[in-house]
């Protein structure tokens, strides 16, 4: 799963501050709150506020303070120390509560406020929370919309099981699972003659992720991650999936909830996609049919094999299952796979299930809450680099970093980055260079670096930290 993250000016400003111990108040101890608390507790003072006593159990095992009370109660927020906190995250399930909590937090102090919403009405047409600024909300996060956008990218990249764009579209990332007889398994990487401007940055084989060398032989069943310029990536797509360029794409969405609806709205904009959406509820189906123009809305259960067969779901090119229930999602996706859908994308509610889903044969398992958590973590732990994407459920990531001024220019091949990191692109002025080994790296260059999670700190240090 990957999470796109646009660069915001706030990042670059904060990048100059040294990471310090922060007080972070989280209102709402649901899955987002718990994941955030777990990720932040090691380096920061975290206070979680929730009015449900049962939620407290979850936080027993995490090194955070839990306060029982309402997030819209000024006194509770004062006790949580909002006055002196650096970040305030409102992550309850109710949009209005989140907004009021942010407004209160702003009255009590000057934290950066992050507000989760689940409905479109709080966002302006550009998708930003413009109207909420008046309530003291600094940043709006809408997990469902983010998820729909992520799925759209994957659906529209033929054959790919993950897709990302970086630096305003000058670089793309695609992840493929190699089938038997794929053009990329014909020989070692150095003999594949990939188009200039494209680079295989990683291979995942048997649960291990590594950067391939020229001598690496790719095999069927491998997942490969390729980065490159859009033109080069088109050529790569043609190589990996010959014959699937052009033509109409049949997409079936199972589940007409928020994510399904938004995804349908997005995909309707693409004329070459034939879309249908399976929704169990008759009333919801009517709402969908009223608001969607080109989509065929079918009233039926996506986990009903007979129904799927009668509607010929097996003939779809892509099946997206976004029911709000992991078990039913898994069942619908496996049925789709059984019927012969080549690409299955499934929404996962509990982040813990992500890996399991992919292990049982679903091409892409993707989580809305995971996307939200990663997005909030970017905000809080920005640092000197900005994380652009998380690939393979956090096992690898793509950073953008600026090379320190004291860096001595040298070619890439002298750096010896090893098996766990690779410079995927050098952004110099308006240019995006997909480097070869003899490409020089200069101070002030922006680099797009792909690396495993473990290597992240080392890579960051190498290019950005001043020698002490």
């Amino acid at each position: 799963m990957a999470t796109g993250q646009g660069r915001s000016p706030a990042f670059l400003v904060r990048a100059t501050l040294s990471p310090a111990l922060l007080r972070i108040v989280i209102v709402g101890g649901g899955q987002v709150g718990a994941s955030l608390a777990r990720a932040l507790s090691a380096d920061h003072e975290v206070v979680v506020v929730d009015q449900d006593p049962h939620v407290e159990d979850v936080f027993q095992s995490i090194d955070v303070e839990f306060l029982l009370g309402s997030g819209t109660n000024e006194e509770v927020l004062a006790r949580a120390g909002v006055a002196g906190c650096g970040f305030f995250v409102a992550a309850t399930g109710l949009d209005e509560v989140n907004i009021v909590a942010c407004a209160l937090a702003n009255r009590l102090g000057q934290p950066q406020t992050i507000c989760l919403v689940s409905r479109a009405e709080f966002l302006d047409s550009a998708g930003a929370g413009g109207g909420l600024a008046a309530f003291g909300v600094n940043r709006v996060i809408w997990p469902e919309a983010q998820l729909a956008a992520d799925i759209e990218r994957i659906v529209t990249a033929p054959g790919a099981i993950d897709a990302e764009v970086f630096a305003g579209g000058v670089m793309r990332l695609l992840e493929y699972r190699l089938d038997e007889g794929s053009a990329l398994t014909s020989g070692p990487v150095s003999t594949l003659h990939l188009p200039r401007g494209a680079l295989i940055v990683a291979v995942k084989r048997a649960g291990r992720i590594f950067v391939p060398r020229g001598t690496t032989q790719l095999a069927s069943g491998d997942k490969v991650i390729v980065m490159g310029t859009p033109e080069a990536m088109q050529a790569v797509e043609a190589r990996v999936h010959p014959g699937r360029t052009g033509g109409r794409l049949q997409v079936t969405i199972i589940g007409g909830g928020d994510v399904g609806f938004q995804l349908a709205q997005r995909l309707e904009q693409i004329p070459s996609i034939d879309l249908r959406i399976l929704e169990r509820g008759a009333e919801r189906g009517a709402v969908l049919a009223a608001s969607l123009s080109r989509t065929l809305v079918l009233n039926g259960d996506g986990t009903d094999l007979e129904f799927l067969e009668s509607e010929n779901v097996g003939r779809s090119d892509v099946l997206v299952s976004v029911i709000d229930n992991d078990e039913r999602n898994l069942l619908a996706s496996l049925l789709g796979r059984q019927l012969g859908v080549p690409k299955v994308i499934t929404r996962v509610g509990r982040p813990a299930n992500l890996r399991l889903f992919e292990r049982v044969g679903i091409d892409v398992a993707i989580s809305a809450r995971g996307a939200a958590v990663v997005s909030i973590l970017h905000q809080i732990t920005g640092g000197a680099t900005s994380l652009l994407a998380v690939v393979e459920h956090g096992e690898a990531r793509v950073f953008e970093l600026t090379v320190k001024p004291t860096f001595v220019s040298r070619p890439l091949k002298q750096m010896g980055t090893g098996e766990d990191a690779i410079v995927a692109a050098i952004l110099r002025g308006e240019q995006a260079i997909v480097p070869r080994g003899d490409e020089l790296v200069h101070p002030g260059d922006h680099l797009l670096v792909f690396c495993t999670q473990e290597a992240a700190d080392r890579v960051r240090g190498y290019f950005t930290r001043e020698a002490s």
Partner: protein
Amino acid sequence: MRYSLVVHVCGVLVRYFSAMFLAPLAVAIYYGERSDALGFALAAAISAVLGHVMLRAGGTSAEEAVERLRRIEGLTVVSAVWLIIAHLAAIPYLWVGIGFIDALFESMSGLTTTGATILRDFTAYGHAVFLWRGLTHWLGGMGVIALFVAILPRLSIGGRELFFAESPGPSEDKVSPQIRRTAVLLWRLYAALTLIQVAALRLAGLSWFDAICHSMATLAAGGFSPHPQSLAGYQNPAAEWIIITFMFIAGANFALQYRALARRDARILLSDEELRAYTGIVIVSTALLVLALGLSRGLLPTIRTALFQTLSILTTTGFASEDFQLWSEQAKMVLLVLMFIGGCAGSAGGGPKVVRHLVLARYTLQSLRRTLHPRAVLPVKLGGRVVPDDILQVVIVFFLFYLLVFSICTGIVVAFGADIITGISGTIACLGNIGPGFNLVGPMANYADLHPVSRFTLTLAMWIGRLEVLTVLVVLRPEVWRSGRWSADAREGRAQGL
């Protein structure tokens, strides 16, 4: 159903209708047509007296009556008023020596903006009669009752029921949340457009009198012309182009045009599906007619003639710039199909209306798709909005009854001696408020040669067609009458001095 209320409200409306005779009265005096003047004066007097008697007989005070009007009573009032007014408007024709059935036919044809005539000899009648023909068109085009709702403050509340009973489109089309203001604004737009057309036709060389009569007939999508050969009698291309323009306007939704004008935004027009379909029909039919007619007249005159006749039939106006009875069968077929379409909802045009065809076509397509995907949710949409099921049903029922009334009337007309083409075209021309048909009732002929029973049947067809079938048919249901009482409450009646 409370008869006292119905009679009372009808009385109010009829009494005001008497004022309408004053215009032809003035014209008759101006042209020195003494006898005709007397006829109009008499008609005015009878209307005023009849209205007053009904108003008194009904009892309750007008404000209360209109406020308490229920749906069915509103429908009854509208149906009845149209019938009564048609009789009153026939008085001047009776006065100049036309028989009763013919006088009623002519008067109903005028008010319902049909434009079918029984006049054989146009020279026998004075200016005032022709102005009256035009004026009945003009009043009927935007709606007599809409006019009263606009000018009578006391009709403002219950006027809602009356207004929509008179122009029952598939959707409520308003330009203001207030019904009275809606009526005022629409009538104002209508009157302004008429004045512009009068000026334009005058500039094109018509006399003031001809310009006024033709303008009232055009904007109302009527079709009466003071000239026995209709527009063909003038041989004036400029006037034809002007009438083409205003026929197109008259056949489009006035509420939509008002909104576009008020907001100075042409996109409102461009994005309207019905208007787009209407324009499409005009373009395609004109092209087909040009093909069927050939280019013996030269390209531009052929296009003008084809466009004129397409709009004249589609908008249900019924002018003729040429005797299309002489055209090829193919060309006549195009016109016959257009007769079954009609103008846009909320326009002056009659017929089943473009929007109903649009809804029905979409419904049919969705039903076909449903056989492929039995579980699909397939709403019928118009302008991006879902058409609710109840409206959909009303549209289907409308077509069924429209065809039923059409078949019955055709049967009667043919049974009484007309050929089938005359029967079919004459009936649809009256039911759709168009005017001329083919053969015996062609554009240069008249309806006077039909059997009296046929003429009477077609008079009723015009009435039913103008009120869009269901309004009249609902009122004719026996249960409406069985449950009827004179007054809501006898004691209440006494308290008010009955």
